């Protein structure tokens, strides 16, 4: 019996030390899927960059259902992965129950900033600031004086996008008309390009000639229809300008890849706490490349860059939707 016990404990110790030596980071993608050309794909690109630079490897899982969230967290934590990086606001609840159970594991969560746990690194982005800039560009590019916003699932985060966009547009043109629609209220709204197309057509018929899609996979349909109908669109999260060269005005960049890359680089010693990446940290911004160079004139560029500097310096205050759950510039 004692022999058995010591053997068992030796085996356990070995398993533990093996786990410690191999402490790989783990990455949990949200329901939108790893290759959504947007939010999750940006995370994957960051992880990929880390893996290429360091020769390391990371574990990953694409969630298929809500029920898997907690399970995936526990499996990675128990397998010794460190840090465990999770994507999206929907991980907040599972994390608040799981994180205290694994005090030695560091958890990183993107798009969450309201939890309280010592082993948690919470990274959020100032999406309203980036959206403000693309809103300005939209208002300057619009000829009809009407612009559109199409969100994915109707959650505060997406309203936060829309709110910054509306404020930026109003800063350029006080009387601009903003048509805002949400695709749906369930996670299916992130992957419904057909609905995205219909919304785009509906907004175009209401006069919109620049449409901003903050809708994950649904945005593919928005950008496609906008290109078919000959109006401009604005991509989100990753640089989507290349999807329809010359027909995507710009993309609101959210450097999720940088956040993931930094967390993986720091490894087990990743700093915990709350971090917000804004314009000043290059955490958000707008995309300018050869695909949209002709759409953004010198004047537009200089005005937006001026606004960017003013936001960083605190001269322009972009109101966050979270502050009082309402938007001064747009009614949802």
């Amino acid at each position: 019996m004692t022999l058995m016990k010591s053997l068992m404990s030796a085996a356990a110790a070995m398993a533990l030390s093996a786990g410690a030596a191999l402490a790989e980071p783990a990455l949990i993608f949200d329901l939108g899927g790893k290759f959504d050309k947007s939010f999750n794909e940006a995370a994957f690109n960051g992880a990929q960059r880390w893996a290429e630079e360091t020769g390391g490897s990371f574990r990953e899982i694409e969630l298929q259902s809500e029920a898997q969230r907690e399970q995936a967290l526990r499996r990675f934590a128990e397998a010794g992965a460190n840090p465990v990086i999770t994507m999206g606001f929907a991980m907040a609840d599972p994390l608040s129950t799981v994180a205290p159970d694994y005090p030695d594991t560091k958890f990183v969560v993107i798009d969450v900033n309201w939890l309280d746990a010592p082993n948690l690194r919470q990274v959020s982005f100032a999406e309203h600031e980036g959206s403000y800039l693309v809103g300005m560009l939209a208002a300057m590019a619009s000829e009809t004086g009407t612009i559109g916003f199409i969100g994915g699932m109707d959650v505060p985060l997406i309203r936060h996008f829309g709110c910054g966009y509306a404020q930026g547009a109003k800063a350029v043109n006080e009387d601009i008309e903003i048509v805002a629609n949400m695709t749906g209220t369930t996670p299916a709204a992130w992957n419904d390009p057909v609905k995205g197309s219909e919304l785009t057509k509906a907004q175009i018929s209401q006069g919109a000639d620049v449409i901003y899609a903050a809708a994950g996979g649904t945005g593919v349909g928005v950008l496609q229809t906008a290109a078919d109908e000959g109006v401009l669109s604005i991509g989100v999260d990753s640089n989507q300008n290349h999807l329809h060269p010359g027909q995507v005005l710009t993309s609101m960049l959210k450097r999720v890849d940088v956040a993931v890359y930094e967390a993986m680089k720091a490894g087990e010693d990743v700093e915990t706490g709350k971090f917000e990446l804004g314009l000043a940290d290059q955490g958000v911004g707008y995309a300018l490349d050869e695909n949209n160079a002709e759409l953004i004139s010198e004047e537009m560029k200089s005005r937006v860059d001026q606004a960017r500097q003013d936001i960083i310096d605190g001269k322009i205050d972009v109101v966050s939707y979270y502050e009082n759950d309402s938007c001064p510039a747009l009614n949802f």
Partner: protein
Amino acid sequence: MDFLTIIQILDSTIRLSTPLLLACLAGLFSERSGVFDIGLEGKMLIAAFFSAAIAAVTGSVWLGLLAGIASSMVLAGLHGLASITFRGNQLISGVAINFLAAGMTVLIAQDWFRQGGRTPSLIGAGRFAPIELPFAGALADVPVLGPIYSELLSGHSILVYFAFAAVPATWWILFRTRFGLRLRAVGENPAAVDTAGVSVVGLRYAAVGIAGILCGIAGAYLATALQAGFVKDMTAGRGFIALAALIFAKWRPWHAMGACLLFGFLQAIALRFQNIDLGGLIIPVQVMDALPYILTVVILAGFVGKAIPPRAGGEPYVKER
């Protein structure tokens, strides 16, 4: 709300109803023969993928359509094999088909195109182009009827016209041909059909096969006419709304068209207006999204007449006990 807005909403209704209508007619054939089919969603999804994939590779949307129909037929055959030949549970087989399609499409797409479970964007001949009906341009200026003809009826892809033509065709096949009579009989009382010397298994396979063809067209419409490529899970529950429409229509072709147009109309309204203000009473968009299901439950509960499914539905036929 002006006239043009109404036309635009109705136009959107037609686009959104078409996949529902095709899937609903597919379910109609299958269920009228006594084979429940909750795999409509999966068959549409796999057809959406293969039509987009083949159209992207070959550059021909017609080859894509054929590939979509073929893939949907394979799943229909699988459903038939499990639930007709091996007398398995039809609902479980349908669920399995839905899961199979959801997983397999993304897996194959990732392996073939390396674009993260989607197909490349289709261009030119890889998509169904809108068809301009004759004189649509010339008649556009005629008041009232002009816009109805040139905006609403003209300018859809050929699959839309096919879907609406399939409604009278379905009615004719089911209620005016020998095949249709037997098909309906096999869903009500297969033993009687068998006694008359007609193959129950053969008829049911034929019905499931027709369902496969129609689902294939529905999927191809989503991926190659409405959209320009396949995206993961792009059917987004339309197969289930089609099932709801089928129950709502009490398994009748003309009513199926009415139900699909109604559900499409509700979607179009929900997409056009976020919140509807009815003189102080504000209807949130979520209510409009849920309305098809609520209406179906109301019908099922027997408030608006009774919805009686084909009597032999869901039961595999056993020749001798």
